[in-house]
């Protein structure tokens, strides 16, 4: 009786999830298959003739291109820098918010607000209002201190982009850390207090280990988004100067919509997918350890 009922329930269950499975397949598999197909074509929008099958020629060209390796390095460098800034800054912010005695609610709203600013706007604000060597706030501060204004996008374009991205992700990191801090068992803190732990020891032996897990989650989620960073680069530097801020996503954009090379762009896109998977693999292993610990 129960066996039949559960078999029936299982069939019904399969039937009910079918639409979403079909939709997911259509959304994922079809574009992926098309990208695979385009990557194997010599398909340029400016050529009059039909696209011809080119085998692995697009990949060979990509791997022979020094610009590609530069883009990979730029992608990873940007990722590391933005992660370090947002996780580090988020941690400090969360620790400060955790001890804030009054105005915590208002502070929290202020802290989260960068998250609501869309990337293009954030990048424009930073470019024109903060980092501009002529009219920017940072230049004004430098002047007030008697220092020469620093032209961020000319002399440290990658760092500038990383700062903008980190600013956008700071609230996310800070809020996750703050939530984790507030879930730290108060009796553990008291036990450490009786054991003679001062603020520094408390931070080192109790708080930071407790935050390892949320930190892992933050790194994982930010990595997913930062590997495909585009809008901030497009708005501020356009990949330059030279190709100093051209990451993989921007390289693909240049191939597809500036060189009109669909085949080359598809090949680069597939390589980016592989790269993202490699990074994700190591991230998950690294983080998996701290999650099971």
């Amino acid at each position: 009786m129960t066996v039949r009922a559960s078999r029936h329930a299982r069939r019904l269950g399969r039937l009910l999830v079918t639409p979403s499975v079909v939709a997911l397949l259509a959304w994922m598999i079809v574009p992926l298959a098309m990208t695979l197909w385009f990557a194997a074509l010599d398909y340029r929008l400016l050529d009059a003739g039909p696209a011809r099958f080119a085998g692995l020629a697009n990949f060979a060209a990509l791997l022979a291109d020094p610009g590609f390796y530069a883009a990979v390095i730029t992608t990873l460098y940007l990722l590391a820098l933005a992660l370090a800034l947002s996780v580090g800054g988020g941690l400090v912010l969360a620790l400060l918010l955790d001890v804030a005695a009054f105005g915590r609610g208002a502070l929290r709203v202020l802290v989260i607000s960068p998250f609501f600013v869309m990337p293009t706007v954030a990048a424009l604000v930073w470019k024109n209002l903060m980092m501009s060597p002529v009219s920017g706030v940072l230049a004004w501060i430098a002047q007030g201190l008697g220092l020469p204004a620093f032209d961020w996008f000319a002399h440290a374009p990658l760092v500038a982009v990383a700062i903008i991205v980190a600013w956008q992700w700071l609230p996310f990191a800070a809020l996750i850390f703050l939530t984790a801090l507030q879930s730290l068992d108060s009796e553990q803190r008291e036990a450490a207090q009786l054991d003679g732990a001062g603020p520094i020891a408390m931070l080192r032996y109790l708080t930071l280990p407790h935050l390892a897990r949320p930190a892992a989650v933050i790194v994982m989620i930010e990595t997913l988004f930062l590997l495909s960073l585009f809008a901030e680069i497009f708005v501020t530097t356009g990949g330059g100067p030279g190709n100093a801020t051209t990451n993989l996503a921007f390289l693909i954009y240049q191939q597809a919509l500036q060189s009109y090379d669909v085949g080359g762009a598809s090949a680069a896109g597939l390589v980016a997918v592989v790269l993202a998977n490699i990074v994700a693999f190591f991230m998950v292993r690294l983080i998996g350890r701290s999650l099971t610990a």
Partner: protein
Amino acid sequence: MSQIELHGITKRFGDHRAVDRIDLAIARGGMTVFVGPSGCGKTTLLRLIAGLEDPDEGRLLIDDEDMTGTAPAQRGLAMVFQSYALYPHMTVRANIGFALKLAGMARPEIDARVERVAAMLHLTPYLDRRPAALSGGQRQRVAIGRAVVREPRAFLFDEPLSNLDAALRGRMRVELRRLQQELGTTAIYVTHDQAEAMTMADRIVVFRDGRIEQAGRPLELYHRPANRFVAGFIGSPAMNFLAGPRAATFGAAEIAIRPEDLTVAAEGWSGTVTVVEHLGAESYVHLVLEDGAPLVLRSRPGEEPANGAKLRVAPVAAKVHRFGSDGLALG
């Protein structure tokens, strides 16, 4: 000789006096148990002694030294928490040795002391595990080990056994008491369980609403409760309380009689048996008297009356506790 002295300690939370002008001296080397219903202030008082809360009024002396405003770590007290509060990312070894490490003790000495305490608590095989890989009883022992290793002036126990199952709780009670006597360290033990208080204490302090109701040796409280509250709180099953004309014949507003001090008699109060609890070594007979007052009497096994039987019971006259209308015991 007392080791910890409280003088007029008061703690308010808003308008509520959680601890209300407590004067208490805690004897050196003994086990003092704070007992009372939840919200009576016993845990708050323990936290005040530990330094986790600051009193609004009063003074705290430890070894004749004023420690009212001293930081918790400098008081030389070790506390065992109800949740154990083990550090989850540290091994058992690191958990036990944490205080010594913070105190700057040399590594070999820390190791030696941790090993010694672990052997005492049967934790040696688990030293390199983390708390998540331990059973409840083992975690409990780690928490105790963390307190013992510091060789503190006194132990503070905050309901340490309440998260264990009944069988383990019974064992740990005895083990904890044996350990404390072996070490000869002063201990304050907070519980809401009067049976735990009776079995463990050298001295019991009964709290209610932030005040001390009575303090004394366990059997002193059992045989001579100072008031109605203590009489009802200590002992299980609880005392039988009777008011009205039955109390008046003893010259009191209310009388209380323990179940073992009631006997079946030819002359006495008549009632009907409603429930008989067979516990093996003894039985408890629940009666309802003619006016509806409930009564419990202890009976030897094999002699208990049948359900629904009518019988007469009388108290052992010398064992009747008499209370005035203010709830205080009459001499």
